[in-house]
Structures are given as structure tokens and as C-alpha cells.
């Protein structure tokens, strides 16, 4: 019985993520309307047969924009978080494992990154490179490094003194081997949570960058920006808020469910089920 529900929830995670991917690919090849076609006369139309998710403040078809924007939102979210996580985990491992001056240096660099206002960094990027997807991805990735670094480093500090790590060391295992074989697997739980938390943050952060003129340039849509553009019209046209909000939530929930199953799966193994 228990196993059955778990299977269910695992398939839900897969279904959701699969749906998101299919949706993104669909948006690449087909949208019911031109996502950027402005038609002021048709603005704020509620959902209907022709516009299943209604139209926005410029009369653009919301469904088409959601489809078209999926590419940007998911690509930016996933790419930025993976890059940030990769860098953060690597640095965190080094900081926690080697300790001493290494720890001090890496932690202080991470503090510096946290303290520098993100607007300042965003404006700097915009001034140096022309705005676009790469700037957004790198910008958000950079912002994600400190959280991953800290989560990793603190866990490593705790794990590296445990008996099995000491045992491995006594058996003559090298640093790299200990880190990859014995420490990294034990970080999984915390890192998965951090991943899912960061993903939602990244999809929303992209919108803030666009507003500063640093992000994806209009008229191309992203879910985050659709949500921000809808700010004044929430009471007039609720679908403008609900549609992108729902898709962001679905993406986040889908990836979270996948991650959850890893954790639950580990528990199940431990219990010998």
C-alpha cells in the first residue's frame, strides 16, 4: 500500500516534468497565435475558445506567450541553477574539506558576493555585454553560488569527522576519492532541496533582471516577465496572473517531486523495504 502511493507520487513528478518538456518543445514549433502580435482592440479578453488563456494588456494571446516563453524560463532556470550549483558545490567541498585558509578565502569571497547588491552586478553585466540570455544565465548563476557553497561546506564540516570517512582515510583513500565517494552522496538531501528552492528563485529573478533592462529584451516573453507585466492588472484580468503563476508553480512542483523521491527512496532503502 505504502509502496503504491510512493510509486504514484514518483510518477506524478515524472509526468509533470515530462509535460513541461513536451510543452517547451511544442512551443518551439507551434503556437496558436503569433506570441508577439499586438492588437490593442483585443486586449484583456477573458479565456475563450480562440484564446484559451485570454489576452494580455496588448491583446496578445496568453497561451501562445506561455508556450513561447517556456523555452526561456525553463532554460534560464535550469541552466542558471545547474551552473551555480556546480560551482557552489565544488567550492563548498574544497572549503569544507581542506578547511583553514582555503575555507576562509572561499567563504569570504562568497560573503562578498552576497553583500554586493545584485542590482549593481546586473547593471555591470548590462554595461559590459549586450543584454540577452547568456547574461541572465551567468548573472543568476553567480547569485546562486553562495547558497550552494554554504550548504555544502557546512555539511562537509559535519560529515568529514564521521567514522566512515575516517575509516576510508585510514584505508589510504585520496582526498578526491573521499570527497566524491564518501562525502558527496551524503550531501544529496540538502542539495536537492537547495536545487528546487533555487529553481523557483531563478525563474522569478529573470523577470526582475528584465525590468532593469538587463534581461531578455521585449517583445519576447518569459513567465517571470509576464507575471511582472501583469502587476497592475491583477484585479482586472486575473488570468494574466494565474496563467504564468500556475506554470511556474507546476515546474517547481514537478522538479520538487522528482527530488523528493530520491530522498524518500533513500529512506525506504534504509528501512529495508
Amino acid at each position: 500500500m505504502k509502496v503504491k502511493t510512493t510509486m504514484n507520487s514518483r510518477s506524478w513528478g515524472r509526468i509533470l516534468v515530462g509535460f513541461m518538456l513536451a510543452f517547451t518543445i511544442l512551443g518551439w514549433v507551434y503556437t496558436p497565435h503569433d506570441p508577439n502580435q499586438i492588437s490593442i482592440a483585443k486586449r484583456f479578453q477573458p479565456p475563450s475558445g480562440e484564446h484559451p488563456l485570454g489576452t494580455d494588456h496588448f491583446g496578445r494571446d496568453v497561451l501562445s506567450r506561455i508556450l513561447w516563453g517556456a523555452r526561456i524560463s525553463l532554460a534560464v532556470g535550469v541552466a542558471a541553477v545547474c551552473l551555480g550549483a556546480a560551482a557552489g558545490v565544488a567550492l563548498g567541498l574544497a572549503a569544507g574539506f581542506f578547511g583553514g585558509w582555503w575555507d576562509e578565502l572561499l567563504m569570504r569571497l562568497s560573503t562578498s558576493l552576497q553583500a554586493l547588491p545584485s542590482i549593481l552586478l546586473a547593471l555591470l553585466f548590462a554595461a559590459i555585454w549586450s543584454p540577452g540570455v547568456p547574461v541572465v544565465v551567468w548573472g543568476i548563476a553567480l547569485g546562486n553560488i553562495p547558497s550552494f557553497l554554504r550548504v555544502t561546506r557546512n555539511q562537509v564540516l559535519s560529515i568529514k569527522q564521521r567514522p566512515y570517512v575516517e575509516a576510508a582515510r585510514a584505508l589510504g583513500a585520496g582526498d578526491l576519492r573521499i570527497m566524491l565517494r564518501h562525502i558527496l552522496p551524503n550531501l544529496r538531501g540538502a542539495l536537492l532541496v537547495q536545487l528546487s528552492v533555487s529553481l523557483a528563485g531563478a525563474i522569478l529573478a529573470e523577470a526582475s533582471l528584465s525590468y532593469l533592462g538587463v534581461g531578455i529584451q521585449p517583445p519576447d516573453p518569459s513567465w517571470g516577465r509576464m507575471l511582472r507585466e501583469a502587476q497592475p492588472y491583477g484585479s482586472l484580468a486575473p488570468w494574466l496572473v494565474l496563467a504564468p503563476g500556475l506554470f511556474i508553480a507546476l515546474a517547481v512542483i514537478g522538479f520538487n517531486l522528482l527530488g523528493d523521491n530520491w530522498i524518500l527512496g533513500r529512506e525506504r532503502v534504509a528501512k529495508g523495504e
Partner: protein
Amino acid sequence: MKRYLWRRAGGFLLTALLVNFATFFILQVLPGDPALLMLGTEGSPEAYAALRRELSLDKPVLPRYGQWLLRFIGGQWGNSWRYSLPVRELVSRAFPLSLGLALLAVGAAAGAALPVGLYMALRPRSFGSRLLSLGTQLGLGLPQFWVGILLIQLFAVQLRLLPPGGAEGWVSFLLPTLTLALPRMAVLSRFLRAGMLEALAEDYVRTARAKGLPQGSVLFKHALRNAALGPLTAAGVQFAQLLAGTIVVEQVFGLPGVGQLLLNGVFQRDLPLVQAVVTLVVLLILLFDLAFDLCLGLLDPRIRYE
């Protein structure tokens, strides 16, 4: 321990200087200088030149930085260009507010996350747990802006129970705190849940359970202590982020916090103000980091500072 503290102090100084210089450098590189921004679309070249002279923007960059740094260390923080007020006064008004709000928000988030996270870990497959899990996931995807607006709409406009904004009396901090705490609570409870699930699967917990130790003792003495590392680290990161202000929540609730100061400062290239704010934020985060690391050692004796 002594060596450790020395190293920490060295790191402190280096970080503060690094961030300070980076801020200065970035503000120099950004297009649009403060004199231009003060004059807007009505400026003439004469006025522009006069203003640059007055702000000593016509002097070379490095000596200007050196001079600023010396004065700053000496306690002379100068006047903000954007607000025509002493930087010290601006900062001493904004920081207590942001610091208080950060404490309140992270405190409320942690307080609520504890029972929620524990429940989700102990009854991972129950209906309530799944509902809570879904709720926390939704909490992550909701933009703070919408949460804030909806709370104002409900509590200030419809029910007329709470003020819609401002920093007048403690009641006016309820809604901002709630807005900030909700997504953070979601994050912390998820970390706690993951940590607890892992800890419960560990050998020593299973051993303790098998030995027949009371459930409560197993939970709180053994499992929670090990599970707390993840959520505590996350709470630390959250607190550091909140120190630099939360622009969206400050804007929605009209709070004169650090975020507003920083945003306006950066947009106006207000060097004295931005420099002072960023430097203070760094120092606070560093102090907080130190305290945090020491607490970590208390919580988990296995962590050693050599």
C-alpha cells in the same frame, strides 16, 4: 582557537576592502555619472561641469578612492548626493528597520518551519504531509509582490484590521513580516524535512530506536540535532540576504529600509551612500557569519576549528 580567530580577522579585513573596492569600481564603470543623473533632461554643459567639479568627479579615480577610504575609516561618511543628507543619518535610520525586519521574518519563518518540517518528515506519506508539501512548493513559486498585495487587499482594504503600509507602530510590521516569512518558511521546512528524513535513516537513530529509547528523546536529542544543520545554514543565508534589504517588500509596504536606500543610491550613482551601505552590510554579514560558525560548533561538536 587563537589561530582560528586571527585568520578570521584577516578574512574580515580583506573581505570588507574587497567589497568596498569592487563597489567603487563598478560605480565608476557604469554609464551615467551622478552629475548627469542629478541634472536629468534639463542639464546644460556648464551646469554639468560645475557639478562634476563640486562632487570632485573631475579628479583622478584612485586618489579619490584613497581619500574616501581614509575619511570613511575616520568616521567622516560625507553627504549623500541623492538625498542631500549625511550618509550617517540615512544609514542609522534604515539599518535598524531592516535588521529588525530580517530578525522578525527569519524568526517567524523558523518558528513555523519547525512543526511543519517535523510533521512532514515523521508522516511523509500522510495526506496532511502531502498537502503541506504542495503548499510549501507553491509558497516558493509565489512572487513576494503578489503575496504582499493580496495581504494588503485582505487585511487593510477589506477587513480594515491592519495598516496598508508605512512604519508607524508595531502593527505596521505584521504584514511585511508575514510576506517575507511565508516563502522562507517554505524553504526552511523543506530543509528540515529532508534533514530529518536522512537522520532518521541513519544507523545511530535506528539503533537508539531499537534500544527502545523514548520516541521524543530519539527525535530531539539525536535526529533533530543532526537535521538542524541544513535549515540553519539556509536561515543564515536568508538572514544575510534580508540584511541588504528587500526591495520588493519595502516598495509594496512603503518601508524606508536599506533596500530602498541602495536601489535609489545605485540608480543615482550615489557613491558615498552606496559605499557606506554596502560596507556596513558586509561587516554585518561577516559578524553574523562568525557567530553562526561558532554556534555550528556548539550544535555539532564534530565540527572542529583548527
